[in-house]
C-alpha cells in the first residue's frame, strides 16, 4: 500500500502568534511521503502548533502551509492525526473506533467497514481485539487503536502529537518499534512531535530542532537509527552507541541555545 505518487507537505516561512505573543517565527519544513520527520522542542516551544497548522486546525499569521502545492484550508482525511491522549470514543468498541472515519466517508457498507477495521487492528498488533471496550485495553493498546484509526483511511500523511508521552517507558519503546514497522510498511509521510530527544533521534529520518521564543528551526539533521531498528538492532544497543550519545548532547545544546541562563 505505497502512496501512488510522491506527496509533499510544506510549511514555508510560517509565523504564528497566540494572544499577542509570537510562538513560531519563519518556520520552514518539508515533509515528503516515506519520510519520518520528527520535530523536537522543549515544552511550550510551539511544536504542537506546528502540527495543528499542518493538520489545518488553525491557520498561520503569515507564510504558507501547503500540500502538493495547494494551500491547506482546513482539516482533511488525507492528513490523519494521532493525539497524545488517544482521543478515542469510549461509546464505541475498538473496531468501531477504527471504522469511524470510514463511516464518515460514507458509501462503504458495514461488512466492508468491519473487514477493513479488523485488518487495520491486526496490522498494529491487535488481532482479535475488535470487540474490546476501551477500558479493557491498556494505554499502549489504546494508542495502537488510535494509530489504526488514523491509518484505516490510508492517509497521505500521519501527524502525531506526542503520541507516546503518556505511556510507561517499556510500552513506549514497544510503540516506537511498532510505529517504525507501520511506517516502513505503508511509507506514509509521518510528522512526529516529541520533547523526548532519545525518541526523536531513534525515529527520525529527518530531525528538526525547535529552539527559542518565538521558536525557530535551530537545526535539521538527517538520521537513520530507525532503519537500524528495523534491521534488527535493539533500541538499547543504539542508545549505547557513542555517536548516538554525542548527537543527543548536540541536540540538547541546540535546544537550549537561546534560553537565558537559569
Amino acid at each position, binding site marked *: 500500500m505505497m502512496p501512488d505518487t510522491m506527496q509533499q507537505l510544506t510549511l514555508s516561512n510560517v509565523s504564528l502568534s497566540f494572544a499577542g505573543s509570537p510562538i513560531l517565527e519563519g518556520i520552514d519544513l518539508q515533509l515528503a511521503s516515506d519520510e519520518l520527520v520528527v520535530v523536537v522542542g522543549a515544552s511550550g516551544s510551539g511544536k504542537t502548533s506546528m502540527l495543528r497548522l499542518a493538520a489545518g486546525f488553525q491557520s498561520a499569521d503569515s507564510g504558507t502551509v501547503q500540500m502538493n502545492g495547494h494551500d491547506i484550508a482546513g*482539516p482533511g*482525511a488525507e492528513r490523519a492525526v494521532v493525539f497524545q491522549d488517544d*482521543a478515542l*470514543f469510549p*461509546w464505541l468498541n475498538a473496531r468501531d473506533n477504527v471504522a469511524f472515519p470510514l463511516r*464518515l466517508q460514507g458509501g462503504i457498507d458495514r461488512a466492508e467497514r468491519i473487514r477493513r477495521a479488523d485488518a487495520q487492528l491486526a496490522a498494529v498488533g491487535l488481532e482479535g481485539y475488535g470487540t474490546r471496550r476501551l477500558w479493557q485495553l491498556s494505554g499502549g493498546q489504546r494508542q495502537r487503536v488510535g494509530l489504526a484509526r488514523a491509518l484505516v483511511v490510508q492517509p497521505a500523511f500521519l501527524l502525531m502529537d506526542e503520541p507516546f508521552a503518556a505511556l510507561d517507558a517499556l510500552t513506549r519503546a514497544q510503540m516506537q518499534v511498532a510505529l517504525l514497522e507501520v511506517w516502513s510498511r505503508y511509507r506514509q509521510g509521518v510528522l512526529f512531535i516529541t520533547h523526548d530527544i532519545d525518541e526523536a533521534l531513534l525515529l527520525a529520518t529527518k530531525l528538526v530542532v525547535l529552539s527559542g521564543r518565538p521558536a525557530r528551526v535551530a537545526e535539521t539533521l538527517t538520521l537513520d537509527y530507525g532503519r537500524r531498528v528495523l534491521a534488527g538492532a535493539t533500541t538499547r544497543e543504539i542508545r549505547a552507541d557513542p555517536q548516538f550519545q554525542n548527537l543527543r548532547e548536540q541536540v540538547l545544546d541546540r535546544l537550549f541555545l537561546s534560553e537565558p541562563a537559569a
Partner: protein
Amino acid sequence: MSALQKNPLRRKSAALVSAITITAVLIIWWAVTGMHGIDPLFLPSPGAVLAKFAEVWREGYVDATLLQHLAASLLRVFAALAAAIILGVPVGLAIGTSTIGRGIFDPLVEFLRPIPPLAYLPLIVIWLGIGETSKIVVIGIAMFSPIAISTAAGVRSVAPNRIDAARAFGARGWQLLLHVRLPSALPEILTGVRIALGAGWSTLVAAELVAATRGLGFMIQSAAQFLVTDVVIMGILVIAGVAFLLEAGVRLLERWLVPWRGKL
C-alpha cells in the same frame, strides 16, 4: 472515585450504619406512639400505618387502589419526563454549542429554574384547564431546567481532542453533534435525567392539587382533608420509596448506557 466507594468493607459498614439509623427511627416512632397522651390523629403507630398500607393496597382509598394511584402518578411523571427530554436536550445542545442559542435559551432556563411549582400552577390551570395536560406540564417544567442545564454542561466539556479527531476525519456540523458531542455528553445528560426525576417526583403533590381523581399526591390531600393521618404518612412513605427506586433505576440505566463512566 472516593475511598468510600472503592473499599467494599467500608461500603458495607456504611450500609450497616444506615440500616441501624432506620431501625432506630422506627423504634423511636414506635415507642413514642406507644406512650399515653399521643393522639393517633397526630402520629399513628408504625403498625397502624402498615395495616393501612395493606388495606389501601387491597381495598383502595377514595375510589382507587394504591396501585391505581401509583400508576396514575407514575404515568404523569414519565409523560412529563419524555416531554422534558424531547425539549430539554435540544435546548441544552443549543446553549452548549452556539452563542446565539445560549443568548436565547439561557435566560429562559435560568428564569424557570428557581420558581416553585406552586407559584406557576394557577397560571397553568388558567391556560390549560384542569385536565391531565396541566398536571403533566407542571411536572415537566420542574424537569426541563435540570435536563437542559446538564446537557449544556455536557456538550461544553467535550474533550477538544475528540472534536479535533473527528474534524480531522472530515466530520462537520451535524456529524460532530451526532457522533461526538451528543454521545460525549450522555453521562451528564443522564445525571440531568436523574436530578429531573427527583425534581418532578417532588412536584407530584402540587400537580395533583387541582381536580385530580387519582394519584399519590391526590390521595394524600384527600386523606389530609379528613384527618386520616395514617393514609397521609403511608402516602409519604410510598412517595419516598418510589423515589428511591426511580433513583436506583436511573443508576442502573447509567451503568448500561455509559459503562465507560469513571473508567476512562
